[in-house]
């Protein structure tokens, strides 16, 4: 199975790879997947005034999983919380040209986005 050029590019040059401190102000962290399933994604967003100003990821998984999360961080930057909620796994499939056996990678990336947003919103709620 050959990988699409975009998957190879994200794999070789991952965008926004790294971590924020979880307890940092405005940071939301989403961790999805399981080691037994062969993929775990950690996706983090940094939010200021309802806008995602920065995003980072770390991923254990195949090339398509790494590319899906790398792409997700690229798309998240500059979006409002509301806009970020609208990112769909099918958008990722289309952009990266993922074959059917790799669709679960995009689903995982969408789950990671949702989890990071939910974590941010939970932390932002007045105590």
């Amino acid at each position, binding site marked *: 199975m050959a990988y699409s050029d975009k998957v190879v590019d994200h794999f070789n040059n991952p965008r926004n790879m790294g971590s924020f401190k979880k307890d940092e102000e405005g940071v939301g962290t989403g961790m999805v*997947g399981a080691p037994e399933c062969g993929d775990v994604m950690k996706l983090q967003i940094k939010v200021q005034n309802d806008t995602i100003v920065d995003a980072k990821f770390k*991923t254990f998984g*195949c090339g398509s999983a790494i590319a899906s999360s790398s792409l997700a961080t690229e798309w998240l930057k500059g979006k409002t919380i509301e806009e970020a909620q609208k990112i769909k796994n099918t958008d990722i499939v289309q952009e990266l040209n993922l074959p059917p056996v790799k669709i679960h990678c995009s689903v995982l990336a969408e789950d990671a986005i949702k989890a990071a947003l939910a974590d941010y919103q939970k932390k932002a709620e007045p105590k």
Partner: protein
Amino acid sequence: MKLPIFLDNHSTSPMDPRVLDAMLPYFVEKFGNAASRNHAFGWAAEEAVENARKQIAKLIKADPKEIVFTSGATESDNLAIKGVLEMYKEKGDHIITSSTEHRAVIDTAKSLEAKGKATVTYLPVDKFGMVNPEDVRKAITDKTVLISVMLANNEIGTINPVKEIGKIAKEKGVLFHCDATQGVGKIPVDVQDMGIDLMSFSAHKIYGPKGVGALYVRKKNPRVRIAAQMDGGGHERGMRSGTLPVPLIVGFGKACELCDQEMATESVRLAAMRDRLQAGIMKEIDEAYLNGHPTQRLPHNLNISFAYVEGESLLMGMKDIALSSGSACTSATLEPSYVLRALGVGVELAHSSIRFGLGRFNTDEEIDYTIKKVIEIVTKLREMSPLYEMAKEGVDLKSVQWAAH
């Protein structure tokens, strides 16, 4: 050094140019049918086939008449297992095999089971992937007609105590089939000494052509009989009909002859390169685990799990080196290697495994390049791995509640 490097010699091997030279006259010039008994074309083909039969038999210490040509080891496995079951159905229907056999054996057993034609015992293996001969003995019942245990495993290279199993089979009067595809030509095989009654192997794993294999079928003590699985002209003493692929058989013969002559020096050279590869990787990378037996394994095999990184991404990061992984992402089934699972290797480490398969044409320079690349990519992907980050922070990954999907 030419890229890409081929380090996947368990899957197949490049053909030795000397094998190709031996084959070439049998395409255009000497194209006869080995079954044509009445003209020179047929005689030339028959002579070539019988010469190859001798070369092949010599490598495994058999009589040339005990070699039945097939299309490859998968067919040989099918023919041996289904052929014995059908022939000896009056005696019983029980097969004993192991949980790390090649799919050609396991799926054949499962298919017979599903059709109600056999009952099958799948023996467990120890943490190194080895079958315990005493388990074989205990599993034998008065309905057992066949024991099928592989010589060496295709993923982890572990060599089974075949001679001990052969002895038990003899003692109990049960036939013993051995899938020796990965072992023949790489380690000494002696069907007499090992007590093997039927043995599958193929040409393309030993620098011969694809599309031809053999089933060794013992002729005396005991005389083994199998029911043919294909009807036709009754070739190969009625056990396998079909016109013999003379060029392929000539190549198979030549490949066996070369292995016979060169195995002693080649296996030492391959083991030294393999050990250099293993040491070079292990020295620089922590939490890299050897899968398989530390000493009882094929000289050209190395299987390592790199904790916290996934196998397919490792392969993707080393695209100028041809390797294989036990990761689910590289299999059609989306399940990680059942062989590694049978050893008790955790699922997450099975996802992280890489198989290195060395061969006749690999060089020290290629091995050094591979060591460098493995260290680079494992380091890079661990930087990227949330699991590695957590482990370094002291989080016990086993205690984490993962959201399985």
